[in-house]
């Protein structure tokens, strides 16, 4: 590179986790859009942009021009219209890793497989079960994208909402230690160390886990030729709504406790969940794991293998009213006013909702998914 040139990263991994050293005359900046590349381009050509984190590597800013250049680049891609956060290489990589291995990929994988297996165990038609799981996360998280956790929970009937709230509280308690362990390992560098060991061993674990994902019953059962209405995905898949609420809130809480800015934690948890859900809708979990980075995929498997045993007891209590059949069936629909008010209050006053409402306001023109 030329003397005094600028090197731009779209993530912090190489600098932070690999410890890449860059020549001292070179300015090193980061402009990290919080969306897949195709989405960045699509938003740009319609005159908008995607939320973006920018940073300057403090060891490589010899002329003090880094921040101005990062801002300018971000304006060039339209990121300033959707929201720009001044971050750092370290914060970007630690929050990015945490989000992708817990809520974004890990929990969606665990929740999908457990849900499918439960329906098969209880005698729900396999084609229906496969379709409900494959497309359910996309439809459910579409509500999350537009209205946050409370917007998603509001799609349920009152009785279902009360139930989803209760079991998601339980899920949060069960999974909290696992989320914290992941955050600790990411912060200490332990995660990257073991993953890079696996790289050096020719991706031994990664490839074995990837192959195993391709062999699950869910993966091998094609989606049935049945019509599932948009609301039906909520009514018949209340369990996934509870998983998503628990995962989003836990990931956000854990990141904020670890010192990550709430805005950044929002982008890495709630904001990106629908984008990953789209890949599951396309071709299930194998596709999701193929599309995401190897780093995300490795973390996803680590989480998934630790999470399933943790949830074993919980899953024995789950029946088809939560997954596979309409939760409202055979219920009279009445709820206690005070319970409902308390639940709504708890959902709406969570910090991810307060931060999210403000950030979503900046993304005035969010597109709806165009599925035909």
């Amino acid at each position, binding site marked *: 590179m030329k003397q005094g040139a600028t090197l731009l990263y779209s993530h912090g991994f190489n600098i932070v986790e690999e410890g890449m050293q860059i020549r001292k005359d070179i300015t090193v900046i980061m402009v990290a859009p919080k969306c897949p590349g195709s989405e960045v381009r699509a938003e740009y050509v319609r*005159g908008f942009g995607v939320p973006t984190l920018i940073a300057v590597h403090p060891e490589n800013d010899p002329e003090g021009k880094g921040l101005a250049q990062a801002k300018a680049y971000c304006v060039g891609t339209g990121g300033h219209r959707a929201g720009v956060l001044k971050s750092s290489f370290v914060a970007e990589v630690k929050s990015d890793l945490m989000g992708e291995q817990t809520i974004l990929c890990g929990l969606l994988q665990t929740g999908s497989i457990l849900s499918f297996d439960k329906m098969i165990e209880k005698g729900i038609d396999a084609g229906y079960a496969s379709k409900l799981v494959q497309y359910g996360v996309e439809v459910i998280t579409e509500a999350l994208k537009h209205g946050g956790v409370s917007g998603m929970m509001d799609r349920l009937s009152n009785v279902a909402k009360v139930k989803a709230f209760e079991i998601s509280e339980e899920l949060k308690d069960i999974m909290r230690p696992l989320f914290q362990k992941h955050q600790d390992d990411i912060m200490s560098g332990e995660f990257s160390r073991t993953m890079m060991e696996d790289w050096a061993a020719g991706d031994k674990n990664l490839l074995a886990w990837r192959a195993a994902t391709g062999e699950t019953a869910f993966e091998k059962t094609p989606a049935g030729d049945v019509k599932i209405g948009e609301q039906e995905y909520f009514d018949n898949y209340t369990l996934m709504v509870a998983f998503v609420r628990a995962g989003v809130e836990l990931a956000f809480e854990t990141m904020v406790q670890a010192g990550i800015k709430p805005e950044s934690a929002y982008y890495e948890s709630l904001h990106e969940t629908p984008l990953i859900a789209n890949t599951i809708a396309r071709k299930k979990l194998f596709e999701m794991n193929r599309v995401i980075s190897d780093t995300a995929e490795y973390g996803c498997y680590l989480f998934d293998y630790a999470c399933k045993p943790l949830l074993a007891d919980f899953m024995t209590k789950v029946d088809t009213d939560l997954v596979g059949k309409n939760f409202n069936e055979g219920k009279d629909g009445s709820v206690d006013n005070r319970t409902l008010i308390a639940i709504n209050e708890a959902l709406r006053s969570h910090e991810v909702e307060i931060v999210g409402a403000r950030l979503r306001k900046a993304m005035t023109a969010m597109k709806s998914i165009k599925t035909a």
Partner: protein
Amino acid sequence: MSQPVVHITNLNLKYRHKPVLMDLNWTINRNENWLLCGTSGSGKTSLAKAMAGIGHSYSNIEINFNPQSSLPAMAYYVANWFQFKDLEGQSNFYYQQRYNKQSTETTATVKAELESFGKKHSLSIHEVDRVLAALGFSELKGSTLIQLSSGEHKKLQLVKALWLKPQLLILDLPYNGLDVLSRKNLNALLEEISEAGTQLILISNEAELPGCINRIATIEEGKLVEISAEERTWNDIEASDKPVPTFLSESVVNASSAEIIRMINVNISYGEKQVLKNINWEVKAGEKWVLHGHNGSGKSTLLSLICGDHPQAYANDFHLFGNKRGSGESIWEIKERIGLISPELHWYFDPSATVWQSIVSGFYDSSGLFCDPGYSKKAKTDELIHYFGLDEYKNTLMNELPLGKQRLALLARTIVKNPELLILDEPCQGLDQQQTLHFNKLVDELCKNGTTLIYVGHFESQIPGCIEKRILLENGEVKSVETLLESVL
């Protein structure tokens, strides 16, 4: 007397909660081929979809297929809109993606698409070749769906229907985007399948129709009204007496350069396939051009260069508004000076924006509105909404309106900033005759103020009067450039 083929009794239908069809009755007998014409928004498309059983089936629509016929016993509807999917079954494409070389492999080829259609309906793949040839489509078999222009997508839809030969074929605006020769060939093919037993219902406002059309109707106040061929003529059209909003009569601010476009030996290719070859073209400020060429001759690629949408602009000797492309400008600095309407812009436009937001977004060249436009832009928008007669739809979402009304809103968006260069690529698709006439008169008005115009339209009758120069493309090359009338200035 034999049973009627279609028997509709007291059909009531709502479009987005508004009644459009009220106690509609219609009987179609054997050997009848109907034309359904009339104003945009009268309910033609809703009726057609109901007959084809799309979305909902109605007990008061009775269709009696001929059990003796060898043709498929179905009512097949060819929509006025096209929707294609990528290999993963998604239809999430974005504007400009088509010009991106790497993206072309994400959709199926025409050949694969036809094979899967043929398999679904058990059709012989050999029979499709003749239809492809007749519509000039054979060479495109290897192309992927995303590479097709809007006219070519329309042809693909028609090829499927003509290959299928259902007992009842309903075609909604089939001529949209087709060049003159293709329209002729389509009419011949329609006559042929009608001969062989397919009954036609054609929704169209075009003058040239297949000879087999023997009944004509319009929808008035929710009811079907049969009319004669004479009544179809254009005599009910009166020029609008609404004055053109004053802000559109202001002279456009001209660039420092008197030269709008200069292309020197411009070439565009994808691998082996050359789409534009050695194009030389100059457009000076204030000139009014029409761009002609068959479907697939390279018109939309040429226009995409001018609109800053084609990445290969940077690899060519190409000047826009006096500056060489690739000399530091952003695409937004180019779009700022252009008012564009095209079938693609419509296709990729944000359907969840309201009519008002869509029109204001013309000031910013965005798809959807992202900021508060302030007083004067809002006032201009309101004035234009009134001029286009869209007052009652101001806060309606685009995807809740029929195609013709959507198009009117996008036309208002195109001119709202009174741009120095207007690019109108088949602007009147989906409009009725009266709307087309009004719009062309408006274009003539605008062009008095120094606006530069590039107009694409396949039908002479739809072209505004102010056109003075013509460029003809054929297979990606400039076939001719001619002056139609001397500018009076």
